[in-house]
Every structure is written in C-alpha cells, then in structure tokens.
C-alpha cells in the first residue's frame, strides 16, 4: 500500500484534522507494538509541527492502519474521506 498516494487523495487543508484524528487512533489502539524509530518519528513530528505535513500524515496513516485498521477506517469515514477508507479496505 502506497500511503503517500492515499494522503495525496486528501485535500491539503484537511491534513491537519486528519493528523489529529490519526494520533487519536494510534494513542487509543490496544496494540502499541511499533518500532522505536517509528514512535520517535511521530513524537518528533508532533514536537516540530510536521505531523500534518504530507510526510507526517503518511507516517501516521500507515501506523494507525497497522495498529487499529478498524478505527482508522471509522475515523476516515467520519471525516468523509471515503475514497481513502475504501482503498484501505480493499488492500
């Protein structure tokens, strides 16, 4: 799955809200087993304000889908990003 391509399907002005929701999915996920390097990237992006950049959202989307695909799809649905949700469901 090319998550960067999925993020490109979302209008840039919605990256901020998507980033917020994905952080919520990641923090709320029961599964918290992600490599330290990935976790540190998320923290650095949150600190530097780059969590809503294309690279930041791509990383968050990939991690969220890995940890809790169901809630990732729900979040995308609630944000009316149905085309992205559909791509993840089909993958």
């Amino acid at each position, binding site marked *: 799955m090319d998550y960067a391509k999925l993020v490109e399907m979302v209008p840039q002005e919605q990256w901020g809200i998507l980033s917020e929701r994905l952080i*919520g999915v990641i923090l*709320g996920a029961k599964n918290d087993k992600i490599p330290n390097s990935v976790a540190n990237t*998320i*923290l650095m992006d949150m600190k530097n304000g780059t969590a809503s950049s294309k690279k930041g959202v791509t990383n968050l989307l990939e991690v969220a889908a890995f940890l809790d695909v169901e809630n990732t799809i729900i979040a995308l649905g609630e944000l009316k990003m149905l085309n992205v949700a559909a791509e993840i469901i089909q993958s």
Partner: protein
Amino acid sequence: MPLKFGIEFVPNVPYWKLTAYAMIAEKQGFNNLWVTDHFGNRNVYVTLATAAMFTNKITFGTGVTNPWMVNPVITAQAIATLNELAPGRVVLGMGAGDKTTLEAVGVEMGKPLAAVKEAIEIFRKLTAGENVAYQGEVFKTAGAKFNFKIKNKIPVYVGAQGPKMLEMAGKIGDGVLVNASHPSDIGFAVKMAGEGMKQVGKKPEEVDIAAYTSFSINEDAKKATKAALPVVAFIVAGSAPPVLEKHGINPGKADEIRAALKTSNFPAALGAVTPDMINAFSICGTPETCIAKIAELKKIGIGQFVCGSPIGPNVKQAIDLIGTKIIPAFKE
C-alpha cells in the same frame, strides 16, 4: 489567581504514548504534569526526562515519590539532572509512600513524618549546593555534595492525606498534593495545611495546594462514570473504615470489593461500587458537571486541580475536552 491545572500520568504505557499525551496536555494549556512512581511501571525519572525533551513550558515532577525506595541523595540527583534538561520546569513531589507497595519489596515504612521531612531537607541542601552532613532520625549523610551546580530553587510538593502530614506539608512544602476528590476532604486538607503555614508565618499564596483527584470526563456521563469505576474500587478497597464512614459508606461494602479484587473478580468488584463511593472518591461526568465540582474546590482554596487517573474513557479525547471546555472556564 487563575486556577492551575495539572494532569497525572501513570507510566504503564510505552514511553512514546505517555510523551505524546504530555505534549497534547501542554498544547491544551495544562500547567503541571505529574508522573507516578511505582516499581511495577516504567521508571519515573526516565519517563520525565523523555517528556522534558519533547515539551517546552509545562512544569513536571514526581507525583509522588517516597523517601524509602531510593536514597534521598539519589532522588535529589535525579531531580537536579532533570532540572538541567528543563531548567525551572521541575518540581519534586514527595510523600510517605504506600505500605503495600513498600512491603512487596521488603522495605519497612517507619516514621513517615520524619522520613519525608528529612528527605526534603537533604534534597534542599544538596540542590542548594551545600556539603551535607546530616544527622536525622531516619537519614544520615556524612558529607554528600553534588559536583554540579543547580541555578534555580526547585520547588517541593508534599503528598499528604492525614492531619499530621498535611500540617507538616503546609509548614515545609512549596506545595501540597492532596490525594482526595471530595470537597469535605479537600476542605480538611486546606485547613490542616493552613495550620502548618500559620506556625511558620507563611501566607496562603506561598503554598500551592493541589487537589490530586481521581478524574474522568466525557460528553457522555455514563461513559465517564464507567471509566472511573476501577479506580474508585481500588480507592475504596484501600481506605480505612473511618475514611469510609466519614462519607457514609458501609465498611462491609468495602470488604466485599476488597475480597473481589483479591481474587481478580473485577466484574464483582466494579459491580459493588455505589454512587456514594463514586461521589466520595472521584470527580467524573460531563464537562458541565466537572466544572461545577472543580469550582467548588477552588472556592475552598485550592491553587491547582490535578486530573488524575483515569482522566477519561479515552485519554486523548479527555485531554482535548479539558483543554477546550474546562481550563477556559477558569481563566480569569
């Protein structure tokens, strides 16, 4: 003075989750971050160090450590090193410790008042750059000194619940962490800490009295209450009969919860928690309910309100809710 808001995190989640929560809390306007200290969880100082690296203005500290598990000299060293990472943003939270926890590692908890007082004295002397030769009832040092300097004074908060500890906290603390949620308990704590303050000529504004509550918030009151149940069950199980009777709770009910928890029968334990218990030992509900309850505590005289575990059924949502609805309601 506007009410300060603190938040408690338990390092029972990976470092990156707690650090992310700390960043979100800072962004949402919290003033203080408190991290609990229990050997079963991640180390409090390592956790605080990581949080320090990823935040810029939030004040943080141990919520609380105790004088027994680690020698006060090493506690002072850890806090002083944290202060180097985040100058002026660090506080020490020190209380008597929990008997059950200490017994689990074979540490005897003797003379809690003296131990806390002496540990704080040693902490203050060391962080002031003194060569400490200390002859206390509990602790002795024969020339302990840091090889590095601390530029600022590090505030000390004393964790207290009983009358004597509260009085002493008012006397020697820069702040008091009162482990309670109910107005009558907070009122008692403010009174007792005030007695101690009077004895040494301190003004009320010189000591930050913090209500360290069990807190749960959600737009759905039922969800908020459900999340508070496990914490309330443990508080009730650990409370002495006079504490329960003060709140009109039958100690027999507490025995029932204790027995269920001992056998890990959580449905039975949680099922035995009554509305009276929830009201006595937590602040939970919708933002409107929480605002009213916090306002009551502010009127009694607290300077800081600490949102302790569980915070809410969904921690991030709860932090966001507190930041958008609760904190603004107390900005003067």
